[in-house]
């Protein structure tokens, strides 16, 4: 633990976050915020799975109560596809919407960001791939996350699947930070255990990568370590007791912390590898992260051993007196056993990945901007090795 006398980083930094409301029933203030942001016609973005939950009706009612109109757009698949974004833009324009309210997991929130970007910038979504490519602000965006992990509701990231070329485009810009995030732990009770596990590990990867990022900062560190601690203590319980609202709340909070951390410190190789993998095989993002995280920790460890040791301490791992390589093993073992306790046993080969795919995956992965902040700058060959180890 820090004593307060260590040297801190004084490099120029900036911290960006939306206005966020955290707590039970936060979702019900959606209509109020629509009105406050000048909304007249709301594009309500969600997916077909969520339409069956009570959340959508409640949110619709609050929109109407606030005196706004809305149209519903729900043609979004997991790992949202570029053409789905473009369809959403057409729908937005046809219905003369002027504000976007997204309620869903990372896929829905990212698709909503994509719709927002294109609706004011009038180019295909692929034109915005990369960092700071968005010139005009998108319409006001309100996000209600339904999973405890993605943190797209607070981040400056939007990941859209380039369906033709089978990879995930990372769109990174302060322009895609939503205006308002309504973070409601109650909503998490509708997640099944597998989704709870995957999104929990996603949040954990966010915190890990943000903490060891070469762009980390004292502010992001604070959030990253607290997120790791909360997940460590509560994820298993939340997985085993889906109705435990305290556990759900803590995971939701952890997801928010991890989001604030990674949005401002960025990520690393786990996400670079997962974007390529998930895009190519259309796999759940959280599961990809869960499989890859231990191997990336292994790869990075020597470049950020102090930071990883801090993490190990936060996880209450018994590391005093251990050598660096012993700590590395302790950490990777912890991650693997956490996966197992959450029912994630898979390796990449279980996901039908063949060794011949690895060069393709790593060629795509090395182009991902997330590599830029990995503590150890990778080359393509490094990524191939990590994929191979995860087979």
């Amino acid at each position, binding site marked *: 633990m820090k004593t307060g006398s260590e040297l801190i980083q004084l490099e*120029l*930094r*900036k911290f*960006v976050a939306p206005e966020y409301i955290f707590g039970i029933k936060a979702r019900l203030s959606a209509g109020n915020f629509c009105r406050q942001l000048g909304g007249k016609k709301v594009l309500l973005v969600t997916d077909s799975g969520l339409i069956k939950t009570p959340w959508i009706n409640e949110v619709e009612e609050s929109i109407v109560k606030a005196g706004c109109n809305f149209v519903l757009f729900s043609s979004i698949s997991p790992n949202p596809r570029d053409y789905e974004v473009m369809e959403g833009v057409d729908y937005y324009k046809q219905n003369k919407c002027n504000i976007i309210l997204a309620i869903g997991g990372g896929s829905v929130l990212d698709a909503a960001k994509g719709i927002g970007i294109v609706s004011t910038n009038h180019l295909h979504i692929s034109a915005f791939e990369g*960092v*700071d490519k968005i*010139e*005009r*602000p*998108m319409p006001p965006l309100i996000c209600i996350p339904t999973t405890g992990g993605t943190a797209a509701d607070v981040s*400056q990231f939007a990941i859209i699947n380039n369906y033709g070329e089978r990879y995930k485009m990372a769109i*990174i*810009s*302060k*322009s*895609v*930070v939503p205006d308002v995030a309504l973070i409601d732990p109650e909503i998490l009770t509708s997640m099944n255990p597998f989704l709870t596990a995957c999104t929990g590990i996603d949040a954990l990867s966010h915190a890990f990568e943000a903490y060891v990022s*070469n*762009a980390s*900062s004292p502010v992001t560190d604070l959030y990253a370590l607290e997120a790791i601690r909360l997940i460590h203590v509560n994820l298993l319980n939340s997985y085993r007791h889906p109705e435990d609202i305290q556990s759900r709340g803590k995971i939701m909070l952890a997801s928010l912390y991890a989001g604030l951390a990674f949005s*401002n*410190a*960025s990520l690393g190789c786990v996400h670079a590898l997962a974007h390529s993998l998930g895009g190519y095989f259309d796999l759940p993002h959280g599961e990809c992260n869960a499989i890859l995280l231990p191997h990336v920790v292994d790869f990075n460890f020597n470049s950020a051993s102090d930071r990883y040791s801090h993490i190990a301490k936060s996880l209450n791992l018994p590391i005093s007196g251990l050598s660096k390589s012993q700590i590395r093993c302790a950490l990777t073992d912890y991650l693997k056993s956490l996966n197992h306790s959450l029912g994630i046993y898979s390796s990449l080969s279980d996901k039908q990945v063949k060794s011949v795919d690895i060069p393709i995956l790593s060629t795509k992965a090395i182009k991902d*901007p997330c*590599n*830029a*902040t990995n503590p150890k*700058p990778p080359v393509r060959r490094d990524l191939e090795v990590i994929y191979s180890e995860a087979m």
Partner: protein
Amino acid sequence: MSEEWKKYRDKIIGLGEGSSRKSYYPELQDKIEELEASRNNLLTIINSISDSIFIHDQTGKILLLNKRAQELYQISEEEFDSLTIMDVSSKISDYTLLFNIWQDAINGISCVFEWTSVCAKTLEEIPAQVSINSTIWNGEKVLVAVVRDFRERKKYEEELITARKKAEENDRLKSAFLANISHEIRTPMNGILGFAELLKLPDLSGDRMMNYIQIIETCGARMLTIINDLMDISKVESGQMSVFLQNTLLNVQMDYIFNFFYPEAKSKGLELIKITPPWAKTTVLYTDKEKLIAILVNLIKNSIKYSHQGTIKFGYTIKEQCIEFFVKDTGIGISKEKIDQIFERFIRGDHEVSVRYEGTGLGLSIAKAYVDMLGGKIWVVSELGAGSTFYFQLPSNKDQ
């Protein structure tokens, strides 16, 4: 770390260009300025237009009016929001029609129609052409009425109608005049030719011959009068008639006229009386003597023509600035309908009159034209069946 990744890293952590959080403010500010400028332009245009513009809701309540409307209908900016379109419409307006027009306009069918508006203060009626369209005002469908002041146009229309009537009347009178004048010329001409033919008879007595020659002379004189009248009026009309002013001893002229008409009056059994102020025997008027005589001759000739008994009095009185002449008869008089037109060319009282009495109808218009030329005025007081009195005044210009 490669340079490219270093660049990425810096951008992601928000230190590069364009890395600010999204902000609508610059664009909104531009839009607000644009809107303000365009609103000002619009207001300038609206207030520069010479038509009145009202924006009002579907009940007629006025929401905005331009400068021209404020001036024309005398409505100040403070009071217009308590007024409706009905306050600037004539009391006898058909409001059902108006509401139908408004409803159509709201449904996208614009309309142009004529309407009698009134000034809110003076209640002066202002005929207007109104063009109605619908627009949006504070989120509500309302109406824009562009109101064109038609007062001038109505005036021109009325003048045109009067002028047309007058032209038609003139045309009719000219035809009647032509028919009349042909008759007037033919009658003495027939006399001349007829009696000239009779003069050729071999055994014509001296008395008869003298009688015929006298008739021919009378007819010739009558024709000359007609021709002189025609020439005079045409000279007056073409502006070729000139005025020759000189000192004129009025009583000398009165005597001359009395002597001139005495035989004719007597032969018709009428008494001719000359009335001049006894104390003004040497009254001198600086005027055109010939025209003065012509005026009096025309008036007395008419009096004799239209009187069958009684007296014809003529003369003058001295007023402060002028001499007032009069010719009073006990003749057939002039009807009320005709009295205003009696000095116009070719008018000769009623149709019946023109059939019964010879004449061209130019006498009075020549008299009036001469009075006008001499700077005076002429009028008549008359009662049908009781007689007429013609008056005219000529300025007594003492600077001779």
